[in-house]
């Protein structure tokens, strides 16, 4: 059997080539566009989740500190929260601190005040409240600095939410009611990237209410 060589060596015509290249570019363009859109969408979802995680973190921090506060106050512009929490654990620098009792729990003393029994953990007073208010509690302050929310406990600052995830704080509206609870609204504008520019979309809002357990004076 004789092998017959394929003699057909004709190429594509110019028209065929242009059509095929054109089709290929269209398909590639579609794929590229889809990829970019998908990437952008995923990035948006990621940022949304990140935003939500930080919202939840703020609420968790606030709830924890408000619940254990003796007193909670808000600033006039509702952007700063002051919590006075009992100094439960002996820290270096406290008036009753010794070499052997750092990081141990205090035993409270009980007195009577106009509000009934008052349980005090820290025997001394210190000027650690806003405006130098003397108190025997730890001062925990929540404040907004730029695009970050800071938590400051006795001067130690922790950033509990930041702009690294492209968060834009919109409103932190806090209302302290008479009966001793803190109702908090934390809203952020997740940032989406569109045409090379950051675009703010509809904000996400988390509501929370925490009771001051120490302020509750059951009878």
């Amino acid at each position, binding site marked *: *059997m004789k092998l*017959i060589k*394929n003699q057909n060596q004709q190429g594509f015509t110019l028209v065929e080539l242009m059509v095929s290249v054109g089709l290929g570019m269209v398909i590639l363009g579609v*794929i590229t566009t889809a*990829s970019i859109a*998908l*990437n952008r969408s*995923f*990035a948006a*979802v*990621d940022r949304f*989740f*990140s935003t*939500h*995680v*930080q919202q*939840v*973190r703020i609420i*968790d*921090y606030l709830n*924890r500190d408000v*619940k*254990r506060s003796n007193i909670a106050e808000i600033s006039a512009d509702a952007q700063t929260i002051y919590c006075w*929490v*009992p100094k*439960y*654990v002996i820290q270096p620098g406290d008036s009753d601190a010794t070499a052997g009792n750092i*990081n*141990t*729990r205090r*035993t*409270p*003393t*009980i*007195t*009577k*005040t*106009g*509000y*009934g*029994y*008052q*349980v005090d*953990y820290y025997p001394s007073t210190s000027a650690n409240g806003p405006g130098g208010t003397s108190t025997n509690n730890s001062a925990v302050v929540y404040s907004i600095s730029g695009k*970050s929310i800071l938590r400051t406990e006795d001067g130690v600052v*922790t*950033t*509990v*939410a*930041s702009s*690294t995830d492209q968060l834009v704080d919109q409103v932190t509206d806090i209302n302290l009611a*008479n*009966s*001793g609870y803190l109702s908090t609204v934390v809203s952020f504008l997740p940032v989406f990237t569109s045409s090379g520019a950051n675009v703010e979309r509809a904000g996400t809002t988390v509501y929370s209410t925490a009771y001051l*357990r*120490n302020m*509750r*004076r*059951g*009878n």
Partner: protein
Amino acid sequence: MKTYVQNEDGSAIICAMGTILILSIIGANVLMNCTTRYNVTSKQVSAWRNALAAAEAGADIAYAETRKTFTPGATPFTGTGWSSPDSSVGPWTYTMPTPIGGSGNLLATATVDTLPVNNLLPVDRGYRYYRIRSIGTSRVSGLRRTGMDDTPARVGASFGLAGARGGGDSLVRKIDFNFDHFIATYGDGDGNNKRVVSVPTDANGQPMAQVSRRIELVAVPILPTGRGAITTSGSFYGPGSAGVIDSFNSNNGPYDPTVAQGGNPLPQFYSDSRDGNVICGGSSFTSLTGEIYGNVTTNGATLRTDRYIYGTVDNNVPVVVSPQPAVTPPPSRVYEAGSPATINPPLNNPNCGGNSPDSWANAPWYLYSQLKDVTINPVAVNSTPRETYVNIVVNGDIKTNLTINKGANVRIYFTGNADIKVSNFSNGNVDGSALLNIDGTTSTNHSASAHVQFYGVSPTAPATQTINLDANGKPTIEALWYVPGADFISKGNIMMYGVVVCKSFYENGDCYFHYDKALANMLPPNDYRIASYVEDIR
């Protein structure tokens, strides 16, 4: 036969696979991030919050045991799950026998001990103050390898045995994936017995991540007359538009009407004037715009602070008012003969074991079917009245006239109603002053109200007692009223000093009610309440 060799050159499949690969890489990358976030928000946050619920459940169980202290026939800290090296003095430990929670992932342990007596007020050292420490533990489900979000400030490893943690989620939600960080770092909380404790393992021997939260509560006894001016288990109505409820402390002197209004600088005993608390155990609270210098609590009302209430308002406070049992003379004590119109307590009384009436324990007992037109005198030494004590049991009603002369202390236990024309009621004792006791020592009783104490024996429900105070003009009555089964009604512009504990309180006049804080410790505690809540956030 001709065989053609097909052209096998091509790139379609390669292009397709490349595209899929690129998309998969993008998708996997984002999915990984999203899964981390999802794991944090749905699993770890949930577990962290549930751990507090478990801790509070353990604390609630312990608190319920402390309240058994005043429940007849009940022995606290003896139920299922409780143990103690010495059940009479504690400490007592509770271990939840079975997990709780929707998927049985929550456990709690609680330890109860009593506060050292030196940390209490001397006057309160006869009572137990309980410290409740509770640990709630929740298992953390979800993906183990996706950790927490420490985006704000990544500062090193999150879960080390030494307790080093990051700056974001791991700082607030301290999850133990392999070892208990708290025991490793703080031992029992005070640095004792530090050790490495692994988290529990599942059926496959894999560690089950968990999160623990620790809270400490202090339960203090409730003094029935120490809560405020007026305590009801039901409704409250009043005070009139020109009425006032405030407080003072007779140990610091007589009532001063200018103190409550304050001043600049504040008067010395200003703080004593703002405890005219009203504790309403029902949802019916009617304010007639009289001023209340104190806090108001209700159990379900929709009251708000206004310019008439100078304290706080809490509408979520249940009230426990213990019934007043019938009282008879204790063993070795018998009633005095007859029901005299004038009581002159005898010295060296054989009906009281030969004792003189120098204390409540040595007070003579008198029995009446109705108390009306009665005068009570003290023992006098050299014509000077001395502090003298008298018990009266009334199996019926109380009516005026009633005269309690200076120096006489009287406790009146009655089963019927009280109908008192206040202008015909006389308490000769004076707030802020103290007489000598029979033995010549100086009395510490500076309260006129403490000298006259009314105890209404609680009727069997649904029966109700009625206390009716009626006035012409502006008469004064100083007394302690513990009438838990009574509807207390005040008509007219009465000047009341003392304290009232009743079923319901109604006053339709411009009554002035001055709560004497010296009465706070007149009755023993009947319940416990939580006075402090702290969380160990280490």
